[in-house]
């Protein structure tokens, strides 16, 4: 297969799933598309299985907290996809309500998502539905809160160890 431009990639997704893409931002530093949260699972499968896309490598999953958005408080989950056969990439975003951020897990599609989703759950507090073992991975099991939320406050101590700020 061949390398596709961002416009062609979006066209392929729209051809199969006409309602999945809700926003395209192509003029920024890095172009990205926003996919409807309910259709993320289907879109992910299409991205991997369609031979024109061939996104077989999930490079990274990032969660970003936006408590002060005009549209209401949001959490964005950003998926950076890459293809080792077609040599192109795609950035897909899913926007979730901050009060109850839930999105389908893609660990069955890309196995690497297992740990990445656990990390995003641990640090940002996104619930990945269908994940087989969604527990904390970097912080201690009994840690309270999600450190990368913007309103997170560091605890004064943890199991008797004082939090010293210099």
């Amino acid at each position, binding site marked *: 297969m061949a390398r596709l431009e961002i416009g062609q990639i979006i066209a392929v997704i729209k051809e199969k799933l006409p309602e999945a893409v809700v926003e395209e931002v192509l003029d*920024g530093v*890095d172009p990205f598309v926003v996919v409807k949260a309910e259709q993320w699972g289907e879109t992910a499968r299409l991205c991997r299985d369609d031979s024109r896309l061939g996104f077989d490598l999930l490079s990274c999953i990032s969660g970003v907290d936006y408590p002060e958005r005009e549209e209401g408080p949001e959490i964005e989950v950003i998926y*950076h996809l890459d293809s*080792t056969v077609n040599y192109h990439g795609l950035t897909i975003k899913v926007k979730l309500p901050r009060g109850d951020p839930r999105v389908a897990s893609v660990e069955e599609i*890309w196995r690497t998502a297992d740990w990445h989703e656990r990390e995003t759950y641990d640090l940002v507090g996104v619930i990945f539905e269908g994940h087989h073992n969604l527990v904390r991975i970097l*912080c201690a099991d009994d840690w309270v809160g999600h450190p*990368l939320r913007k309103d997170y406050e560091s605890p004064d101590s943890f199991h008797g160890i004082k939090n010293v700020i210099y």
Partner: protein
Amino acid sequence: MNEAKIRTEEMLLNMGPQHPSTHGVFRVVLRTDGELVLESESHIGYLHRCFEKCAEGNNYLQVVPYTDRMDYLCAMMNNWGYAAAVEKLAGIEVPERAEYIRVIVSELNRVASHLLAFGTYGLDIGAITPFLYAFRDRERILKIFEKLCGQRLNYSYIRVGGVTFDMTDEILADIEAFCDYFDPKIIDEYDNLLSYNGIFISRTANVGVIPAELAVSYGVTGPSLRGSGVQRDLRRDAPYGIYDRLEFDVPVGSGEMGQLGDCWDRYMVRMREMRQSIRLVRQAVKDIPEGPFCDKKAYRAVKPKAGEVYKRVEGARGEVGFYVVSDGTNIPYRVKARAPSFCNISILDKLTSLSNVMLADLVAIIGSLDIVLGEVDR
């Protein structure tokens, strides 16, 4: 004696968090049946200090030293990954001379990192001598870096806009001398000492086989992926810096000693990469132009417009990625790091479930993945 009467029992065994072969604080819970590992469960996070949270409290230039401490064995490439992301976000042009210096120091750092991987891998398997040889030569590289920026491990040398100090002719001569000294060593000493040693081959060939498709699905990158025969190297496939002007080959595994994607293949990719790195250093040293070594404005402060960027570079362990979000102030809104070791080690539990591996082989597998826990836990 009737075999059925012998009572066997499965045992749960904690390997780590303090274990010499895990190369840091990493714990694997093993369900063992005698010498066989039936199942494993990795636990990470013992070194977690939330680099990403720290980054949200410092300005763009102050984040660089934190990136050193992720993968402290190839800090140059971490610096470069972060610097490249911020440069793309802020639209900063890097001076030509700085690009050449970046290639030189990164490739030297790759050699230093692979040398350490080579030495400690021998140690894991029971060969002590290669370790001493590797550290003898790694020391020479660290001396060069010390002369260049005063640091032996956490350089913070590649910064947003260029590099911190200029490269002097004296150091360039040192580097050339090192290349001349080191090039024959790989074949004459290392390969004879370890690579083609009969005991080493029987310990690593056909052990821990990772099929290419599985490796990609688990996000394995770098030498560990190329060991499975996948032709993927960002320096060639998505060139950054001046890599598109330089000539080099991308070595991949071929199942020479056993199956494709076994521990020996992964090990050998690193050995062959060192030779390519020296080739790259020689070219860059030859062509390095005169000029400034850093963008003057970016040397003092950086304030990108609102936006976001994801940038990756090829580190010694795989693809080092940085996702940086700016809100228009001089402090990053969010920095997310993609650490190659984090993805590479996640395949370990799958490998032990695919086939029953021996306890001693598990040590060989972990060593062949070449992880750095500072980066896994960030």
